[in-house]
């Protein structure tokens, strides 16, 4: 989310000075803290910083990417022990220990993320719980390596041969905290961060805009675990003594709580959460049981009352006021028209050829031996009664389902069974029968997601805010804004998609598909839930899309729009094609009239 689009909200603008002052003040306090505070509070602050790093790491996978795992403490512990063993037993310097911690935690993350290929929700929670237990066992029982339940002693913390005093320890930890925060900031404010949210919100739509869900889950957990590993190695070196008890179930609950309180999937949430969770018990000097009971109560209550956490709540407030503002500072933009998306013929006359397509679900044949040819630059409608297999056909073409038999040839290339995230790169964009927008992203982010296949900047570019990243992000957002303008929703760009009407949401989906610069656009019931005016608007837009050479394959029940804008119509029933031809031919076909249109009805 580049600068020019987010900072135009009047509220942010008004208070941006205050935000800067607040940040500088915090930085100053943190820098000066060891001099003002006593030993006890310095130590408290160091632990606080380490936990913030831990919580930030955990939030990347569980908050942003939506993979709720319970192995935070195990990974933290593995990191701590890996670095401790490297430093003590292998006599390596601290930074090598940290590297070892990151390698080990990275490897453990694969143990969790490889099953996450297939499973989520409760299974993921269970797998991670199992890993928590297994790591506990290893730490306790592999005594030759970890010295078991008695604990592990480290030498005094030294970096580059200098042993650290209390002051320098504070600054070293603080330095790593800032480093991790900058890393997270760069990552989250790039397409990577939005991709993680997209995977969390809707895997099918994410795959439809070119995200390989599996890859991103693995990456999210890897990054998250490595950050936790850094925290673990800092913890080990700082406390000079670690024991398996520290890394048990309660620490996992603690991490979970910090994220829940602060706000999952937010940049500042983990930090605020850790501060709250660390400081609250200090006030009433509670016994450990009472503290845990309060923590448990907070977990139950906050999840239901304040799902977004503290930061989420604040953001909601700001958003409500900001919503009505749209992007300013556009600079010199040429007036936009659909011409920009013109597609030139670069392949065979039939852009999409489906041969003998069959899909069986168990004993049910949803689509049987379907042949279909879609001519370039036409609007081709697929109609048929409910349950006729239309959506299945489209799913087979776009790769969401794999066909049992048959082939799909797009633009001369066989794409049978190709994953959606690959077929989108070939130029197939689609919308969905039930709107699939990313609900945690704004409207303009949603549209910009369509253009994500054109990003070329690397993760390093993202983290260091390189010129290339800024340029690409700016272009992508201007483009998204143009797309919104084309469908007439530019005034809604800062809204949450959920606050739009169904018709508007459908239009946003079309804008997102347009942003993919497709050759073929597949629309699955674009008019469902729309009123007459909206249908008329939509059919104008579809016509314009067709007029610039984008082929449209459309499923629709609305006979007026089907008859009004289609060039060709295919009628299917029970997974079989019963008629095909131009609009006039099909509407005159006696079989169709009987089976679908009803005998008396004349095409409108």
């Amino acid at each position: 989310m580049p600068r020019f689009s987010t900072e135009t909200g009047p509220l942010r603008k008004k208070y941006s000075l205050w935000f800067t002052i607040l940040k500088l003040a915090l930085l100053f306090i943190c820098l000066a803290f060891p001099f003002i505070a006593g030993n006890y509070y310095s130590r408290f602050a160091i632990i606080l910083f380490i936990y913030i790093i831990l919580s930030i790491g955990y939030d990347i996978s569980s908050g942003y990417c939506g993979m709720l795992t319970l192995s935070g403490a195990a990974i933290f512990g593995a990191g701590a022990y890996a670095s401790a063993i490297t430093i003590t037993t292998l006599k390596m310097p601290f930074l090598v220990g940290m590297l070892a911690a990151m390698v080990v935690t990275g490897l453990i993350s694969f143990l969790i993320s490889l099953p996450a290929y297939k499973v989520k929700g409760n299974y993921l929670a269970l797998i991670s719980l199992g890993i928590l237990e297994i790591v506990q066992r290893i730490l306790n029982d592999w005594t030759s390596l970890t010295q078991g339940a008695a604990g592990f002693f480290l030498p005094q913390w030294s970096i580059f041969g200098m042993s650290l005093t209390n002051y320098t320890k504070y600054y070293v930890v603080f330095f790593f905290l800032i480093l991790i925060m900058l890393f997270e900031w760069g990552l989250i404010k790039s397409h990577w961060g939005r991709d993680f949210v997209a995977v969390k919100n809707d895997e099918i739509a994410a795959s439809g805009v070119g995200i390989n869900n599996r890859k991103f889950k693995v990456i999210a957990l890897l990054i998250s675990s490595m950050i936790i590993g850094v925290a673990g190695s800092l913890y080990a070196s700082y406390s000079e003594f670690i024991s398996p008890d520290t890394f048990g179930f309660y620490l996992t609950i603690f991490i979970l709580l910090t994220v829940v309180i602060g706000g999952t999937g937010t940049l500042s949430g983990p930090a605020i959460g850790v501060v709250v969770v660390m400081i609250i018990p200090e006030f009433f000097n509670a016994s450990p049981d009472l503290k845990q009971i309060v923590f448990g109560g907070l977990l139950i209550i906050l999840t239901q009352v304040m799902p977004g956490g503290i930061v989420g709540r604040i953001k909601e407030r700001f958003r409500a006021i900001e919503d009505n503002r749209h992007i300013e500072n556009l600079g010199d933009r040429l007036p936009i028209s659909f011409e920009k998306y013109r597609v030139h013929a670069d392949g065979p006359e039939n852009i999409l050829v489906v041969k003998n397509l069959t899909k069986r679900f168990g004993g049910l044949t949803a689509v049987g031996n379907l042949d279909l040819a879609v001519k370039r630059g036409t609007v081709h409608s697929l109609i048929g009664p409910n349950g006729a297999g239309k959506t299945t056909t489209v799913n087979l073409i776009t790769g969401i389902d794999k066909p049992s038999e048959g082939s799909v040839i797009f633009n001369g290339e066989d794409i049978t069974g190709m994953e959606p995230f690959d077929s989108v790169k070939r130029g197939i964009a689609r919308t969905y029968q039930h709107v699939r927008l990313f609900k945690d992203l704004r409207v303009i982010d949603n549209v910009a997601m369509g253009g994500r296949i054109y990003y070329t900047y690397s993760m390093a570019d993202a983290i260091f805010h390189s010129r290339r990243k800024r340029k690409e992000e700016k272009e992508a957002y201007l483009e998204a804004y143009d797309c919104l303008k084309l469908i007439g929703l530019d005034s809604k760009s800062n809204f949450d998609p959920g606050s739009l009407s169904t018709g508007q949401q459908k239009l946003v989906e079309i804008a997102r598909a347009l942003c993919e610069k497709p050759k073929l656009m597949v629309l699955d019931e674009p008019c469902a839930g729309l009123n007459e005016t909206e249908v008329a608007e939509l059919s104008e837009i579809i016509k314009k899309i067709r007029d610039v050479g984008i082929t449209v394959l459309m499923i629709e029940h609305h006979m007026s729009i089907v008859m009004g804008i289609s060039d060709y119509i295919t009628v299917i029933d029970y997974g079989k094609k019963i008629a095909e031809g131009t609009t006039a031919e099909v509407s005159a076909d006696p079989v169709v009239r009987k089976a679908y249109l009803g005998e008396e009805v004349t095409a409108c």
Partner: protein
Amino acid sequence: MQQLIFGLANGSIYALMALSIGMVSSTTGIVNFAYASVVMMGAMVSWWLMVIYQFSYIPALFVAIAVSIVLNIVIYETCVKKLGNLLDNVGWIITLFGASIILDNIARMLFGTEPQAFPYLFGGKMVTFFGANIMLHELMMITIAVVIGVAYQTIIKKTRFGRAVRAVAFRPATSELMGIKSEKIILSCFAMAGAVAAIGGVLIAPITFASYTMTYSIGLKGFAAAVLGGFGNTKGAFIGGFLLGLIEAFISIFVPAGIKDSISFVIMIIVIIFLPGGIMSAKIFNRNWSAAEKV
């Protein structure tokens, strides 16, 4: 022989726990992460009544069952009910863990941290059976578990209530339209799960000793058994429980005790990866795809 009985006895506990998990997840699709604490509470309450207030075994057991039922209902009302669609919203994982640590720490405050000896059934009498010394308690564990399992399957298959449970498990919203109060059914499943949990807790307590941490690792094995049998599949849960007990008993002959406890988690992870539906979903049990029954 010794190992076989031992495995079956442990397995019976895993089976009861998996049944308790399965009852809840068959109707709601969630995994009750707080159930281990309910098991513990059942055991602790009956220990308290027996040792401090001199209750005899059976009344203590019944009070424990009542307490566990109430606890499970409270957990449903406070942690699950208000979350709405449980498939989209994974908030229940967080709230149930919250409930779990609250219960654990209440137990710690009420009953102290010391593990307490818990009386065996029949005063720990031994019998010799094919040259192996077997405690009557262990035989009783197996018997009770089997009786409960069979009784539950009968209820599910034969009674009106059972049909309602199956309907809710399959399509909660549709069942509501058909005049079944889904929420009531779910609530009674939580209640039954509480009762089963308490029985499991009382039976395992003599072996693990009664303390607030008694179900930390056993509870996880309950999950492993439930995974092995397939979530929400109460028949599978039972088989999974006994199977896990046997596997553990026989592997423990070859490996040291510390590693033995990790085995069930390794099995759980492997099953989740390769057979997410549990063993009952494996092809050999399911030639006919429509036979994949959920309850």
